[in-house]
């Protein structure tokens, strides 16, 4: 019997495209023959905006890239600026930065696992994930007064020191999370239906994954040991003991399991950071709610003026964000504003692998594979 191919426009308004993403699917019945990704619905010209702001002013804009892990964006940009201008950072500030980065990684993976399960139809996991995320957001709130868009990490350090009572709360969270992750594994990982939906689905060879420029946990699910924290150590990561979580199955389940493993690993890092945190000088112990934006040196920030001119030159600096390699390429012409900013965002590169991944699969598999790639549209379109 002759049948026609069906063209389905999935998105930009669709429950499981995680924002405004559009898939143009050519379907043969339920089978996807061709998948074309249409993006750009959330394009805000962040890179161009960067050319019109001073170095310091651009930090809040980075919050809005990948709003699930804004600390990582903050840090990636600030790290590039620091390398460009040659700014020294107090050790305590570096430890606080790593603390926020790893906490942010846990938050990001909680949301990812929750929304993946929601995409598969299991509505409970996202509630559990958000319950724990809420605790982490309360910690962020304590730290910098914001829950999602922080503007906390600035060139020269962090904006203010940890408030009193932060570390005990953090320890509480870490101990709580240990049990919770076991709970998640009990609810999700061993579920027969879940495994049936994930194992052997969205398979892609490691070479293909590298060719498409995939990075981060999504790549590590393909058996590639690629982690910038180890490869090009930055901040205090060389002093910390952690292992890179890699799974070899190359399918959706492997990509999911890497996230679970990474949450455990992040907790391990957090414990070390708490133990090794250098003491603050008593005089500069900042109180919660007061933002010392004067540029004066504190325990967590070197003296640094708000407007400064790095020497002419260019820098590409990258970090291991929760979603993958996040890089900032900044060109300076010796003025107070950058000449050019280019963001290499993990979501964008990971997303491009989807068409190859889902060819010959069905719509439910597309959604499962897409969920394991962990994409935030603010990061894709910039």
């Amino acid at each position: 019997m002759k049948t026609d191919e069906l063209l389905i426009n999935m998105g930009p308004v669709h429950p499981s495209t995680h924002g405004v993403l559009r898939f143009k699917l050519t379907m043969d019945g339920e089978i996807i023959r061709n998948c074309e990704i249409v993006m750009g619905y959330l394009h805000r010209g962040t890179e161009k905006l960067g050319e019109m702001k001073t170095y310091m002013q651009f930090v809040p804009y980075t919050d809005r890239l990948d709003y699930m892990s804004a600390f990582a964006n903050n840090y990636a940009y600030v790290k590039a600026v620091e390398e460009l201008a040659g700014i020294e950072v107090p050790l305590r500030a570096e430890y606080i930065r790593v603390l926020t980065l790893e906490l942010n990684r846990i938050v990001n993976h909680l949301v990812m696992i929750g929304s993946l399960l929601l995409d598969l139809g299991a509505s409970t996991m996202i509630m559990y994930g958000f319950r724990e995320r809420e605790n982490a957001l309360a910690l962020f709130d304590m730290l910098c007064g914001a829950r999602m868009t922080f503007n906390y990490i600035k060139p020269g350090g962090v904006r203010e020191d940890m408030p009193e009572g932060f570390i005990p709360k953090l320890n509480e969270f870490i101990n709580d999370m240990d049990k919770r992750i076991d709970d998640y594994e009990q609810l999700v990982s061993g579920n027969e239906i879940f495994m049936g939906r994930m194992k052997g689905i969205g398979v892609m060879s490691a070479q293909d994954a590298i060719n498409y420029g995939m990075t981060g946990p999504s790549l590590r699910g393909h058996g590639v040991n690629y982690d910038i924290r180890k490869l090009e150590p930055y901040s205090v990561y060389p002093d910390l003991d952690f292992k890179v979580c890699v799974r070899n199955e190359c399918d959706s389940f492997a990509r999911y399991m890497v996230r679970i493993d990474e949450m455990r690993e992040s907790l391990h890092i957090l414990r070390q950071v708490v133990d090794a945190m250098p003491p603050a000088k008593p005089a500069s112990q900042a109180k919660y709610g007061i933002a010392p934006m004067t540029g004066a040196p504190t325990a967590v920030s070197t003296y640094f003026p708000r407007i400064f001119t790095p020497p002419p030159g260019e820098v590409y600096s990258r970090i291991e964000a929760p979603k993958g390699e996040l890089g900032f390429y900044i060109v300076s012409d010796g003025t107070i504003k950058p000449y050019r900013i280019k963001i290499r965002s993990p979501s964008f590169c990971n997303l491009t692998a989807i068409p190859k991944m889902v060819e010959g699969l069905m719509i439910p598999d597309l959604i499962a594979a897409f969920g394991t790639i962990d994409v935030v549209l603010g990061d894709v379109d910039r």
Partner: protein
Amino acid sequence: MLFLAMWTGDIMFANAYELIVFILNFIGIYEPINNIFKTLGIEYILRIIIVFAEIAVLLVFALLTIMFLTWMERKVVAMVQARYGPMVTGPRGLLQPVMDGVKLIGKEDIIPAKADRWVFTLAPFLVFIPALLIFIPLPFGESLIISDLKVGLLYLIAISALSPIAILLAGWSSNNKYSLMGAMRAVAQDISYTIPLALSAIAIVLFTGSLSTVDIVTAQNGTWFGFIPKWFIFLQPLGFILFLIASIAEMGRIPFDFQESEQELVAGFFTEYSGIKFAMFFLAEYAHLFSVSAIVVTLFLGGWSFPYLSLLPAAVVPLISLGVFLVKTYAVIFFAMWLRHTVPRVRIDQLLNLGWKIMIPLALLNLLVTGFLLTIGVFQ
């Protein structure tokens, strides 16, 4: 007096009609009324009025049940997901379904420009009617049945197989690709799951030798060794599991909610529906949930029967048995709700594989073994 008469006498009624006539008779108003109608030569009108009264009671019961179920679903989800659920409207949010109804009625009723207007309008009602028709041969309690059909079980399966037609109409007439895919999935799913459903129900019929739901329930009266109730779940454990899985597929709930599959097909076959028409689909879904659970209870969990129920005075048996029936039904419903919010959805081809390659062979095997054991007389 009425109760005394029923207390002493061992009175059973074939259905609710006879129960009503008996009560009217007892109060002493049946004969006078009947005489009036007789002199006019229209005594069949009285029969019709009584039947209508029964239907009205059933309809009110069904609608109240559906409203309660929507509230219960939210509360069960909330329990599973560590939150409160509706709390604002009414005590513990009990009036939430009313507010939902008001909201849905107030919504604009949109018919897409390129939809098939007639079919599009007709489909929600065609979904809702079978969902109510299923209630007719359901034994809610002793004597509490609208009509004890000789082909009760066949009727139940046949009527519940009607709803995919309406779903297909809805999906096709919406002129929306998601709706169409949802409808196609619903039909594929229903065809593959009605078969194991019917096959595992036939194994029950082998025991009772009758398709009547009342006969099936009375066959489960009594106990083995004085404490194990003679429910068919103990004779047919495999049949029960197959029937339960197929029932959940029939209800169209996660893990088998392919007609909707929100994350894939937006809302499946009712993507384009809004307002009261959407509410009709919603209500039909919950009517289905109740009726399918009631069928599970009737076939496998002893219906309204309970060990030593016959020791109670005959006057209270209909009420007690109604309570027993509802408790069992709500237990099955709770299980379905619990399941819905714990597991992910299976994929459509996995579902069809499960249906055709595992459940149908198992159901046939179950039927074969049951027939064989009955023939050699193990169960006598």
